[in-house]
């Protein structure tokens, strides 16, 4: 039995960041991890998918643009297995990187299944460890699929992202159920590796939580690449065979049949709350199954037990978990901390073109009856985008008419995931559209489109 100031259950992006911050604040810290450090994000989530998406990006570049760029490459041959192994190597490097960070900050890593016990104790294997200050739950989430529509994940023909990331070759055809970020990213990847992709979404638009204009832009780009998008579609029947799956979907009341070698379930995640002694230790769950926390202090219903990351509630995003990790450590150490603005968490989908957003969508502004003005700027009018041949997409900012507050911002285009942060910084610090425009933007850059969109929201757009 060992005693620490802080014991963290789970070494994903929420847990390991919490560990580093705890150690920085002088607390003796341990992280309990049953698998690899870095969690879903590093091992079977954010990082390996981005590696595959880069392969897909280059494949599209060679297939569609090389000639125009003055490059002769011959016919393009793709090999998903090679790209997959590259993504695995990167994931492993990153996981080792987290191990190194734990060593550097003198965080003890306890390998095994951690079970919470009453009184801020954690049992790992046969040993019970005690936390003097706090136990932090950061146990994350896992793929769940939607068994209620007959599509139970069987890991061969009906798969989740967990399996898709380890395929040796791209299937000839794949139906992806769920057109959120995960679905759209895999649609992009498999399309580039030659699969016939059908993307099925129950809600009326793909990327249903993004601004409608962003959804439309991606639907258009996907159509151009022959990805078959079926929004507003309900899967009514699924026949799972040994080598193929037949789906019956209903779109606009009309049934349609889709045959595919594999079905990828890109919808539904379950949080990890079972068999870890939560109930016995007094940690209550919400009706939706997340751990119940006080959002101001991140404390659970058990005194001295905190909760961060996916398991603490949506949005289930690595960067939201990491921020909660920092804040939880600071609260436990008794420091004054910057309150988390859950309305200012950027959302990014890394398909091509990329989609990034922050704050409210235009529909949400309408629902809230806000008095707003939209400013837009298309990348087709941006010099840097034209030099790269990546003119798809736009920047859209939504400005509050009275005070100029940035209510929301939506970017579709190359490197949208990178340039959104100018607006994240602006919103976090309460800069208005004017301050964004006043900052000098280097020329030629994609970021100029942001300044232009801000100007457009004030009726002063320059380059269009």
């Amino acid at each position, binding site marked *: 039995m060992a005693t620490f100031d802080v014991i963290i259950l789970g070494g994903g992006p929420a847990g390991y960041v919490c560990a580093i911050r705890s150690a920085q604040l002088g607390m003796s810290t341990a992280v309990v991890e049953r698998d690899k450090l870095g969690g879903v994000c590093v091992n079977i989530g954010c990082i390996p998918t981005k590696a595959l998406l880069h392969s897909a990006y280059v494949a599209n570049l060679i297939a569609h643009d090389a000639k125009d760029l003055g490059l002769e490459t011959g016919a393009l041959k793709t090999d998903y297995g090679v790209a997959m192994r590259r993504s695995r190597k990167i994931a492993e490097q990153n996981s080792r990187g987290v191990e190194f960070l734990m060593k550097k900050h003198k965080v003890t890593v306890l390998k095994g299944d951690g079970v919470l016990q009453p009184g801020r104790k954690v049992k790992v294997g046969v040993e019970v460890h005690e936390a003097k200050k706090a136990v932090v739950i950061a146990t994350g989430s896992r*793929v769940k699929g*939607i068994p*209620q*529509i007959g599509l139970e994940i069987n890991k061969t023909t009906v798969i989740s992202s967990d399996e898709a990331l380890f395929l040796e070759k791209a299937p000839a055809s794949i139906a992806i*159920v*769920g057109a*959120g*970020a*995960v*679905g759209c990213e895999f649609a992009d990847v498999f399309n580039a590796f030659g699969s016939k992709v059908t993307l099925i*979404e*129950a*809600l*009326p638009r793909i*990327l*249903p*939580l*993004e601004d409608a204009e962003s959804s439309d832009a991606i639907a258009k780009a996907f159509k151009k690449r022959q990805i078959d998008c079926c929004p*507003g*579609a*309900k899967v009514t029947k699924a026949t799972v065979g040994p080598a193929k799956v037949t789906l019956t979907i*209903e*779109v*606009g*009341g009309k049934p349609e049949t889709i045959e595919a070698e594999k079905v990828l379930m*890109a*919808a*539904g*995640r379950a949080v990890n709350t079972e068999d870890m002694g939560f109930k016995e230790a007094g940690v209550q769950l*919400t*009706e*939706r199954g*997340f751990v119940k*926390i006080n*959002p*101001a*202090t991140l404390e659970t219903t058990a*005194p001295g037990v905190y909760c961060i990351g996916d398991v*603490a*509630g*949506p*949005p*289930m*995003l690595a960067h939201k978990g990491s921020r909660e990790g920092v804040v939880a450590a600071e609260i436990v150490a008794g420091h004054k901390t*910057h309150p988390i603005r*859950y*309305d200012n968490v950027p*959302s*990014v*989908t890394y398909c091509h073109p990329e989609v990034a957003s922050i704050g409210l969508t235009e529909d949400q502004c309408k629902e809230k009856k806000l008095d707003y003005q939209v400013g837009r700027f298309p990348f087709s009018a941006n010099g840097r985008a034209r030099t790269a041949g990546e003119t798809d997409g736009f920047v859209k900012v939504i400005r509050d008419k*009275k*005070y*100029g*507050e940035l209510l929301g911002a939506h970017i579709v285009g190359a490197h949208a995931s990178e340039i959104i942060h100018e607006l994240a910084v602006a919103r976090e*610090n*309460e*800069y*208005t559209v*004017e*301050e964004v425009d006043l900052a000098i933007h280097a020329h030629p850059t994609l970021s100029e489109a942001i300044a232009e969109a801000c100007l457009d929201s004030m009726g002063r757009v320059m380059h269009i």
Partner: protein
Amino acid sequence: MATKVLMEALSPTMEEGRLVEWKKQEGEKVAAGDVLAEVETDKAIMDLIARASGTLLKQVAAAGTTLPVSSLVGVIGEVGEDLSVIVGGGPAGRRAGGQTATNQPPAPNPHSAPPPAATTPSRALTAAPPPGPVAGRIKASPLAKRIAADRGLDLGGVHGTGPDGRIVQRDVESAPVSARVTPGTPLPARPPARLPGGTPFTDTPLTQIRKTIAKRLAQSIGPVPTFYLTAEVDMERTWEAREDLNGADRRTAGPPDRPKISFNDIIIKATAIALRQHPACNAWWQDDFIRYWNEVHVSMAVAVEDGLITPIIRHADQKSLREISAESHDLAARARERRLKPEEYTGGTFSVSNLGMFDIDQFTAVINPPEAGILAIGAITAKAVVTGQAVMVRRRMRVTMSCDHRVIDGTTGAGFLKTFKTLLENPLAMVW
């Protein structure tokens, strides 16, 4: 264009609702504002209102089903409209599940949604010391500056809660009128003895000793470090006063159905007046500051089937006994039918719980956070009491006050209780 009818969040804490009964049938004409259905929330049965006019084309959810907030319940539109785009994705619950793997929350949840306005910790600390000798530069966000300029607010009087004391949007939005002082004007560090009019409350920053007291006591006893004060009140004169009042009502032929004034009504009135005199007990614990209310809203605990709810007599200190009586009667009746609106049971500043009618001599009540105190009222019983040299039979009532020690100290609570006792023992004092 068809309009979706969604399960709406009808109370601040509602996460799901049970559709009790459809009030409009499929094919029936509806106008915006019509009651479509009855929905049972976590607290009450409420009306689901039509947000559009047309025909109720479809009842997607059947009566009796429980659905999370924002789920599809029905569709309003024009006859013959194609609804497949709206209802084609299957039952609402399934659709909600179908999007949780995407990059954003499927619906607001208590973690991400802003807390209800009544409990939003507003950080304008009006009684804070002014931000030092402001030599020309006040740190404030551009947005905060604009809002302040628009409202004629002097930023020198606003306490900043952003990084390094920077004034941000929430500071100016919640800054009361008293922020319009010139920089440098000394502001009181403690709550004023008399409640000023104008603003509903005053937020006071925590002093170091308050912080330490809060932390140590919470560690010792639980999240709300409670202590209890008990006093016995002589109720003879209140008893007589109540008899007289209700008797006078009969003699002057007041409305026959007018409810009698209850002891509880008088106790609420006494509580409210005592709170006005002891503002330190009329406060909310807000984790990093204390909100001293300049308004008195008394929550009264009402037992309902399988639980209890605390409807609120607002501005109870300014209401006549008659008004309190009528209001408490109405609120209690509707509470039992579970037909209270959320605003009728949220936002109280102090609570009263009465078990006198159950012949309970004395009990302790659990504080209703963020309020800092609650009075537990026992039964009025005849007792032998020593008065001077004689033993007399007097009607007595035992009252126990639960105090959140982070807000109320022993002497503060005792002072309040003393006033409360004096008022009930001299009921005429409540008239002035």
